[in-house]
């Protein structure tokens, strides 16, 4: 896959606002309808994700935020009875095409989950290295280098460099979440999806992750689900508001927060429901 057809990807988008100047969009979703069994969670969501920026997806519980980002790397379909329709274009290719191997998609789009989930019984080192090893990297020196780089990227290296062989589960919650970020970064994705990465963390852990995300957006395209309005305000460049499976409003974070166009967005931001 290449980046040649950015414009093609852009041309498919009908309802989205233009990406901020200077950044080209490589990932866009069109008319995503998804759900489980009889139940429809997303009712036609279209969105273009800006590159090298943090996009926050907000909304009250059950609005379909998580389902939406899980559609972006086709993890949604791993859930029993799950189904989806629509297209997700990555670099001009529809990754929802049944002919496309989801494995290849997920290698380009990393994901961090709501609760820190380091692999149990794996050491800190192995947690980061396992994705590389299983993708064929064998030389110890290469692995060491990549593990260190990923842990530094995730701002965890200084805290764990002298105990890399301890179990990943021995770290604190915030450290575990940064370990999960390092694990996702190690396989060199281009896009990072985060599903409420701070909801299980204390304020200190949350702050560290937020600082980290601001650093990471220089190199990665980040999509983050959050139910925390202040968090979106602090770190997101663009904000999207979902309600009951529909996209209500999207735009630059500052615009959304200062002059929301839809009364429902305003109600949510001012804390009147959600």
């Amino acid at each position, binding site marked *: 896959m290449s980046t040649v057809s950015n414009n093609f990807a852009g041309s*498919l988008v009908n309802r989205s606002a233009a990406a901020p100047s200077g950044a080209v969009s490589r990932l866009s979703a069109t*008319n995503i309808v998804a759900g489980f069994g009889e139940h429809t969670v997303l009712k036609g969501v279209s969105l273009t994700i800006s590159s090298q920026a943090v996009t926050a997806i907000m909304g009250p519980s059950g609005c379909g935020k998580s389902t939406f980002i899980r559609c972006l790397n086709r993890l949604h379909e791993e859930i029993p*009875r799950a189904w989806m*329709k629509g*297209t997700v274009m990555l670099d001009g290719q529809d990754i929802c095409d049944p002919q*496309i*191997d989801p494995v290849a998609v997920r290698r380009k789009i990393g994901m961090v989950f709501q609760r820190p989930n380091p692999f149990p019984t794996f050491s800190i080192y192995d947690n980061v290295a396992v994705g590389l090893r299983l993708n064929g990297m064998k030389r110890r020196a290469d692995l060491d280098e990549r593990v260190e780089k990923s842990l530094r990227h995730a701002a965890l290296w200084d805290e764990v460099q002298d105990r890399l062989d301890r179990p990943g589960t021995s770290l604190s919650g915030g450290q575990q979440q940064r370990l999960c970020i390092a694990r996702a970064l190690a396989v060199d994705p281009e896009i990072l999806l985060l599903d409420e990465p701070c909801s299980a963390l204390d304020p200190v852990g949350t702050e560290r992750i937020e600082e980290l995300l601001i650093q990471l957006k220089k190199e990665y395209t980040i999509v983050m689900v959050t139910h925390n309005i202040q968090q979106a305000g602090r770190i997101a460049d663009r904000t999207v508001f979902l309600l009951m499976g529909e996209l209500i409003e999207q735009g630059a974070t500052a615009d959304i927060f200062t002059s929301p166009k839809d009364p429902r967005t305003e109600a949510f931001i001012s804390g009147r429901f959600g």
Partner: protein
Amino acid sequence: MTAAALSQTRTIERKTARGGPPAPGPRQNTGDRLFFILLRSAALLPVLLILVFLTVLGWGAWPSIKTFGWAFLWSANWDPTDGREDYGALAFILGTLFSSLFALAIAAPVGIGVATFLNEVFTPRLRGLMAFLIEILATIPSIVYGVWAFFVMVPWVEATVIPAAHWIFGPKFFLFRGTNGFSLFSGGLVLAVMILPVIVSISLDSIRAVPCTYREAALGLGATRWEMIRLAVWPPARSGMLGACILALGRAMGETMAITMVIGNAQSIQWSLFGPANSIASAIALQFGEATGLMQAALIELALVLFVMTLLVNLAARALVSRLAGAKGVLA
């Protein structure tokens, strides 16, 4: 939504009947599909094995089934003498049933009592110790129980239990006729010791599953501990405890080595506890080695009968225990 967008729409939906992690669809990569096929064919093995098992035993038993028909089940005559060979399973079937039911009659109240006491009265530390001892009891192999019963229990039964029973009930009482230590009584007793851990651990699971609020409600009404047990602990745990007992019964019926060494191995029906008897498993263990021809077929048919008996009992137990989450570990 435009027509163009509609035409772009594709559906990704897994073809699974009732949900659950999906079977690989067409877009799964080849390696994953092969992996799934490998797992699935491994899962076919138990199915095939049971089919082969039934076929082989049915085939082996066929001469006996053909010769004796249904009468095999209710004839008690077991005569391997050449020329007038005649085989009936009734003595062994009854011996199996009597010995295991007797074992259950001893082990069920004791096991349930122990489990109740452990959970409702013991301190956690003592509970841990006792659970450990019960686990050791469960770990000791059948053959070691057999040797112990042979050298220690049988002499004790002969020297103490039989005289005591005769002293109380008189030597003519039909259940206690005879003075043989190698008997239904010893066989049942050693089985009782062996199935006790099963009953204790599964009953303990079902008692643990009773919500604490029940107990508090009973105590709050001013119940004594014993009344609390009877009112609030046993009734909700009943089906689990019953399942434990039936499962233990299935274990007892299939048990071989220990009972072979102490049951006395008589070939006829035994109604008295202190007379030598036999069980199906024990008869197979002792006679199958030298058996040929019709006798071998009869022993294989005996094995089939035992298999069906244990199967029915296990099915009943499973139906009861499966209602109880958390007991699965002990079933293995």
